[in-house]
């Protein structure tokens, strides 16, 4: 029997496979399609202090080997989340761990959400979205060394729960930003968020996306995500959650070998909602075939 569990943030994840923020709603939306509680965990859609309607359509379209999205952080807001979403998570996820993805436009915004949730049950910790390229100013924390340091420091002061910072790949040296997070008290790093991109309708001569630009995700960005994970894991001691284009167990192993202790699947869930459970099954099979009895032994085991 292969042991897929990972000890991260002081708890045990039954396996490393999580669902990425913005691609699984608040968990409930997939509950009648897959056994969500069998996953390593899920990350909620971003929660902002107030509810947000999001961007005008078109919000998504396909790109080569992936997609572009500009949802505009549409979400139910802090109070809506507490009232409508958290109870389901608390009542239904016993083994899968929940990270609440938090977004905002000022240190205050982030602190407000974290402080407003910290006493609640039903989730493990936070994933801080400092890199959403869709909403003006939202990209700032993730590409500004000073702002990032202040944000992480302020959030550290606001919670004892696991605090994971989700890095943007849109910087020259992602290791540096990982270091800043570590130095300021973060507990872990997620890498990566989407790349800024743009698709043009050449007949209409307009951007396809209502918001003009959006974020690119999917297999197209997998080699960039593996690279970022490797860079971050080589630079800091914190656990890394690898994200970007993961479609199956093989892809997951790329991230794990590069140094990720956990991974998140996003876009591939749209291609097939069974991607996550089949990835877990596939990890079992590959480990068995390779004679690996504990998957955790492969974290960072790349020979480079």
């Amino acid at each position, binding site marked *: 029997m292969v042991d897929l569990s990972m000890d991260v943030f002081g708890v045990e994840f039954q396996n490393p496979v999580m669902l990425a923020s913005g691609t*699984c709603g608040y968990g409930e*939306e997939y509950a009648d399609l897959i056994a969500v509680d069998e996953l390593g965990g899920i990350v909620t859609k971003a929660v902002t202090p107030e509810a947000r309607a999001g961007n005008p*359509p078109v*919000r998504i379209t*396909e790109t080569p080997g992936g997609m572009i999205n500009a949802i505009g952080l549409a979400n139910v807001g802090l109070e809506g989340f507490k009232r409508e979403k958290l109870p389901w998570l608390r009542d239904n996820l016993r083994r899968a761990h929940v990270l609440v993805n938090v977004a905002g436009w000022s240190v205050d915004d982030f602190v407000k959400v974290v402080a407003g949730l910290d006493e609640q049950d039903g989730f493990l910790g936070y994933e801080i979205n400092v890199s959403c390229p869709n909403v003006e100013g939202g990209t700032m924390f993730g590409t500004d060394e000073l702002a990032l340091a202040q944000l992480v420091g302020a959030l550290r002061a606001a919670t004892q729960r696991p605090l994971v910072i989700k890095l943007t790949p849109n910087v020259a040296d992602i290791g540096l930003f990982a270091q800043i997070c570590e130095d300021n008290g973060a507990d872990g790093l997620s890498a990566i968020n989407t790349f800024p991109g743009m698709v043009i309708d050449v007949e209409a001569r307009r951007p396809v996306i209502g918001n003009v630009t959006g974020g690119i995700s999917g297999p197209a960005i997998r080699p960039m995500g593996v690279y970022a994970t490797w860079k971050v894991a080589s630079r800091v001691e914190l656990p890394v959650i690898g994200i970007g284009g993961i479609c199956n167990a093989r892809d997951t192993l790329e991230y794990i070998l590069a140094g990720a202790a956990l991974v998140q699947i996003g876009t591939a869930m749209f*291609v*097939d909602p069974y991607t996550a459970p089949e990835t877990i099954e596939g990890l079992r099979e590959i480990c068995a075939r390779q004679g690996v009895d504990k998957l955790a032994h492969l974290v960072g085991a790349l020979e480079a």
Partner: protein
Amino acid sequence: MRAQQIFRAWSPVRARQQVAEDTYWLELEAAEIAAAAAPGQFVMVGFGMRGWGVPFLPRPNSVAAVLGERIGLLIRVFGGGSRRLAGLRPEDEVLLLGPLGTRFQLGGAKAVLCVAGGVGLAPFLLLPRWEPLKRSGAEVRLLYGERGAAAVFDPDKIRELTGLDPEIWTEDGSLGRQGRVTAGLDLKGVDLVLACGPPPMLKAVRALALEAGVPCQLAVEEHMACGVGTCIGCAIETVDPETGEAGYSLVCSDGPVFAAERLRW
């Protein structure tokens, strides 16, 4: 939990046939979806992680027929995704997710006018599966518009599938009556209008129905990724008919069938 269960299944192609210019009829074996689908609902049709390419994401397509354990799709080629679907052959498999979305609502209507533009015909081909209609015995008329004769899905086949005699309009007059299908919109005696087709057509139908005070439901389209309400990608502008408040609804789960007055058009 959703009102209706969603099935996910690899589904073999059983038949494929060109039925009009750039337009193909596909039959897929999908017993569970076939048993549950109702008019207005759709499936996401994709290729999973096997041999992806174009399309990468699955594509929404209306359930256009239920034939025993098969569902039928009416596919018109627009871009790379529909081209690949149109080119499928028996032996091939697709990944299906469905049935998805809302259905037409008959209410107490006794005289239903269906207005189809182009492959917006698809959901109306499923009318024989509409339980409330069967029970009510309401009267149904079907208007069907295309650009020209070459694009028209065989009227005999429509009769065979639906038992309805479609009233055909072509813009160039090459078959049926000449003009846009909305020109033929006589709402006298009609107590429910259902429409599916390109947005300009839907807007015209909507305006006429609202003006005449006839209840109207529209099946609309928007770009989709998940099809099940998780990505929040398929938003369309709507108003709350009670509060008048503007906002967004999701075409995949709040729609694709919307009451005309809910759309902010």
